[in-house]
């Protein structure tokens, strides 16, 4: 498959459009975040369970954060045609909140309708309706008990000692770069085997501690 990457890089502001011809060239970070070349993108209007988060169904604590990430990745790898992201706003750490679509398929809506994310309080009405449908049908996280991702992130930040099973590792390299990797990155196994690497259960918390994605363009 020929991969021709179209990168329409406008200035880093709302209204910026990031597009690639081959969706599988995008790297998935977790259930609501991805990286297209040097841009880290959070799907606008939704919040998925963090990569290390578990939800509780009966007495089983299942890996809902991982499941959400796998679901997003599956849609991206199986998609064809341009993946187009329209930036809505920029966070202080440079992450772009964007509406990303494969043709007519809004990836945020897909995650909501599968029960793999919650809609943000300020999400468009359509997003809240998608969430309501999934909640009514008890799909995905809605057939379990779970801590809202925002609160889970704060608890995780305060927690001492990370669960070894969290599939996110951060490391400072010899050149002074500080990067975080998830299980979908080809370098993950190598980094995870490095005794200097640190386990994180949330990409947001890794970023708060100063780590960035490999290849991330840090300033414009």
């Amino acid at each position, binding site marked *: 498959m020929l991969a021709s990457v179209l990168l329409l890089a406008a200035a880093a502001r709302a209204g910026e459009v990031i597009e690639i011809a081959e969706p599988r060239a995008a790297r998935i970070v977790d259930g609501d975040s991805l990286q297209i070349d040097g841009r880290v993108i959070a799907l606008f209007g939704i919040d998925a369970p963090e990569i290390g988060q578990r939800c509780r169904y009966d007495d*089983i*604590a*299942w890996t809902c954060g991982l*499941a959400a990430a796998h679901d997003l990745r*599956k849609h991206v790898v*199986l*998609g*064809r045609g341009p993946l187009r992201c329209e930036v809505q706003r920029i966070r202080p750490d440079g992450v772009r909140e964007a509406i990303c679509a494969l043709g007519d398929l809004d990836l945020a809506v897909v995650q909501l309708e599968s*029960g793999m994310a919650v809609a943000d309080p300020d999400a468009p009405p359509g997003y809240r309706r998608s969430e309501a449908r999934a909640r009514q*049908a008890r799909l995905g996280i809605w057939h379990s008990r779970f801590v809202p991702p925002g609160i889970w992130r704060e608890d995780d930040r305060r927690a001492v000692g990370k669960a070894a099973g969290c599939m996110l590792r951060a490391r400072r390299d010899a050149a002074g770069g500080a990067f975080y990797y998830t299980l979908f990155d080809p370098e993950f196994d190598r980094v995870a085997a490095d005794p200097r690497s640190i386990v994180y259960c949330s990409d947001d918390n890794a970023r708060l501690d100063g780590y960035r994605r490999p290849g991330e363009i840090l300033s414009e």
Partner: protein
Amino acid sequence: MAVRPFPGLGTVFYALGWLLVILAAAMLVPLAVDLAFANPDWRGFLGSSGITAFFGIALVLAHRHRAHGLSLRAAFLMTASSWLVTAFFAALPFALGGYDLSPTDALFEAVSAMTTTGSTVITGLDRAPPGFLLWRSLLQWVGGIGIIVMALVLLPFLRIGGMQLFRSESSDRSEKVLPTTAEFVRRLVTIYLALTLLLAIALGLAGMPAFDAVNHAFTSIATGGFSTRDASIAAFDSEAVELVLLAGMLMGALPYARYVGLAAGRGEAFFADSQIRTFLAFLLLASLLLALWLMVSQGRGPGEALLAAAFNLVSIVTTTGYSSEDYTLWGAPAVALFLAITVIGGCTGSTAGGIKIFRFEILWIATREYLVQLFLPSRVGSPRYAGKPVTGQVIIAVLSYVFLFIGSWGVLTVLLGALGLDLVTAVSAAATTLANVGPGLGPVIGPSGNFAALGDPVKWVLLSAMLLGRLEFFTLLVLFHPRFWRR
């Protein structure tokens, strides 16, 4: 009226016992693989194998003196119970291994494997333990040969849904189920093994890693559709792999009786078989039309469009369920086409599910006869299929089957809707499980989706639908009739 056992029950338990012993032995294969890869899951396989072997041996020993012939009702019971019982025990490794699977999820995955449906509730396949992946694939492979034997030996004897057309001459004259079957089954198994080996080698040559090649050889010849990757075949990003799997899926969906004939030198029967011709002609025509649509609507090149169209179309029609991309993004006409072809099915006497090609052929013959009789009422037609007369009884049997299929589809859709699913998910979930295909439509259970997201009640409905479809309805429904159990 008291329920008393009918003749042949001992044979049923005896046969079930042997099935469980075979299943327990099969569990040793993933056990060995996990040991080889130093994965602790081998303990789960050991425990499951022990439990299954215990019940199997107990049944065999308890009924070895009562295993005589197989009466008609005992044959029905054996067919249905063999699927139900083996699926339950096949779920043990999923439940007892360290995979965090609920009992519902374990049973769903086992039923999906054995019926060669291929709907999965597992995410994170890319990093799953090797024994776990192999068990899923092995179950589909074993389920596949079980389906072929059932379709070629039992269903014609039981006259299910028109299948009496495939009864051999000898079984027409005798009431015994298995007059010349042992040799026939031996040849079937040999051919199945040979095709599997051929596919594994071809996949390896196409660039697939060895472990993946073996697993996909199992699941493609069984038209099951389980993959070792979350993204199914798209994960391999290889046209060569897609072409080999395309051939594998086609081979799995053709009538195995014809392979036996081909191996014995009767090649002309293979190429003259009307089911094979209809099936391949339909696939070719539909693939060309779909490829044309992709070229027009998405501007794709002809080669790329044809491969994408053919692979995914053949995958659904053969009821395999692999995806090389998300075809629900191809536009509304394509989505509608994929829904319609979900229920068509493959050829009878293969591993494929669905309504089956021969039933469409019979209905076409019947409709054509009826049409002619409308304006030539005194004409007496004698339609034939595969050299045998298409009697009124055959037509009724086929019509009843199709009626049950469509009726079940409707009832299941309403039930799933009542459980909260949206229309696209409900309709496609019902269709894909009844026809043992695998993926549905829409963002939840489409080719990019996963059945893990569904609630437990929905999963129970769907796994029941998989069994109902695999057992071609009647085999399961007779068990619910009170007279079936009276002496």
